[in-house]
């Protein structure tokens, strides 16, 4: 029996007095891939941000366990060091910090040991090549002036370099052309290790093509209203989310 990596029970979350999640249950086992779909405003990004520990959200009720530990009071950086990763929908631009130096600092923080420069550079170069990123991006300031697609590649590059245990992708495919989605999907599939679990928030299904999806959840108005296997994706494409709630 595989262990639960993430276990959420009756999660209720507010931001500025507004209820976003209203009693959400979700369990993810080691190595499983879960997909979350749902209409805009359902609370999908909120869920990912709350798991990552965004201090702007307040958990008013429910529990959040990661690897059997209550992480509700953990700071974001502590969660990251325990192996949680979020690929942001709109990654921040940070002036004056090169992508390379940033990933190096992050890797040092997450792996809790000093990063050896040459193997690191080698690994970075290799992974950038496989993502078809121009090598000059390593020296560019983090996400500054990157196109939408380059920002998403930068996120996936970080994911591949940090090797987290729980990977959350928040609409990594939105705003990308078909080729870019395919490339990112291939890279995720290729770099993914058996034990890594994934929580993928998406509107489209292209990004899932190379992945063996275990469960699909439909999130609506802050609750999961339907859970099934990959086959319900087709149902959604045919009938829309509204049909799910019936």
């Amino acid at each position, binding site marked *: 029996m595989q262990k639960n990596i993430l276990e959420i029970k009756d999660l209720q979350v507010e931001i500025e007095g507004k209820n976003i999640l209203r009693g959400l249950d979700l369990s993810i086992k080691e190595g499983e891939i879960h997909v979350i779909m749902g209409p805009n405003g359902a609370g999908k990004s909120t869920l990912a941000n709350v798991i*990552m*520990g*965004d*201090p*702007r959200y307040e958990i008013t009720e429910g529990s959040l366990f990661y690897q059997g530990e209550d992480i509700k009071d953990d*700071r*974001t*950086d502590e*969660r*990251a*060091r325990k192996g949680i*990763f*979020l690929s*942001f929908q709109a*990654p*921040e631009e*940070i*002036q*004056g*910090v090169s992508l390379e130096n*940033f990933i190096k*600092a*992050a890797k040092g*923080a*997450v792996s*809790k040991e000093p990063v050896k420069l040459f193997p690191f550079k080698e690994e970075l170069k290799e992974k950038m090549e496989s993502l078809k990123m121009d090598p000059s991006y390593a020296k560019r*300031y983090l996400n500054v002036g990157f196109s939408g697609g380059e920002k998403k590649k930068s996120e996936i590059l*970080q994911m591949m370099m*940090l090797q987290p245990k729980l990977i959350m992708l928040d609409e990594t495919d939105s705003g990308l052309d078909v080729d870019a989605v395919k490339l990112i999907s291939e890279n995720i599939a290729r770099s993914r290790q058996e034990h890594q679990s994934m929580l993928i928030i998406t509107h489209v299904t292209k990004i899932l093509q190379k992945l063996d999806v275990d469960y699909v959840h439909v999130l609506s108005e802050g609750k999961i209203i339907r859970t099934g296997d990959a086959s319900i994706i087709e149902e959604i494409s045919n009938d829309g989310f509204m049909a799910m709630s019936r």
Partner: protein
Amino acid sequence: MEKEKTRLEDVSRALYDIKNPDVFQFKTASGLTEDIVREISSQKNEPDWMLAHRLKSLENYHKIKMPVWGPSLEELNMDDIVTYVRPKTDLKNDWKDVPEDIKNTFERLGIQKAEQESLAGVGAQYDSEVVYHNMREDLLKQGVVYTDMENAVQEYEHIVKEHFMKLVPPSDHKFAALHGAVWSGGSFVYVPEGVHVDFPLQSYFRLNAPGAGQFEHTLIIVEKNASLHFIEGCSAPKYNQINLHAGCVELFVRENAKLRYSTIENWSKNMMNLNTKRALVDKNGTIEWISGTFGSHITMLYPSSILRGEGAKSEFTGITFASKGQHLDTGTKVVHAAKNTSSTIHSKSISKDGGKSVYRSSVVMNENATGSKSSVICESLMMDAISRADTIPVMDIRNDEIDIGHEAKIGRISDDAIFYLMSRGLTEQEAKAMIVRGFVEPIAKELPLEYAVEMNQLITLELEGTIG
């Protein structure tokens, strides 16, 4: 093992704060009187014109009112300030001859090491007098002069008399007048025509005596087709009483010459830093100001460039870091007084823990400055809700044929950016330090290496509070 971290109330200034006993050879009474001014002049055995200059300046000092447009200077009481403290040594050109405690002070500040590794010459001032001056032999042979101001008054009297306080007249403002009356120490540099000084010269000013003032005068002349990089550093240990720094820097950049003037000021937080710096630039000459303001309780500092020759250029790069109890009012002034002159201003300021930083600049385009260009970028970053940042850029344009650009940004450090960096494993302090380091990065690149390292350490200490 993760490093033990200790949150500090304030930046660790341990290195700068080591005080030597206040030992001196001669010290005036505190306060400012004609007798004191005469005493300083006679101690220095000055020519009559210099004494006359001092007395005239003192007259100006009494006439001119305190500036009212900047930070409050109420805490400054001239009756409490000792204007002249002669250290217990005279000028040496070998560190071996400098008294142990003074030598060790500069050793701790890394001056001797830098002298061996990356400088062409060094001057070191302790309280009111320069205690060490030395320069590479080959530059001496090429006619480069690098000495203390006292010596220059004696040995290069005609040059000094022609230039001394001509660019910053004692009538300019109250602290220029004060400086004219009680100036002591500082450096004199003369670079003859066509000579390129390949490594920087550095003067370091250390104020050890409590309740004292430092009034060093720096006069630099870079002749036609010559070039120089001059670095100025300053620091003092912290006392519970107000210290005063009212130095004066006058730079003459002749035709086609180039001068880079870098300063990292790291005074203790009981210092009133009221410094005046000005450059006069001839045809196709270039002045580059690099100005880092980190220390002091109150600073008013606006290095100015007068571009009087056609095609003259000024570049100003400034960084100001105001923390608790600091009010740092910094910026620059450029007067475009000839055709096709150009200036760029790039200033960044950070304020935290209730610190206040003000960027203040003035760009003047005279009627005759046709075809001139100016670009001004000033950015301020506030680390919290109790800190303040203001920008006061002024432009005075008197002709139409110019090209001028201006960009000002004031912002608070972004929670989204902190969250993003923390989501990759960095602590909140590390994330903030990374954002600040990134913010100053374009300027750090311009600093002399050892100062860039120092600035980085300072940011790390201020924001991460890491020891060990």
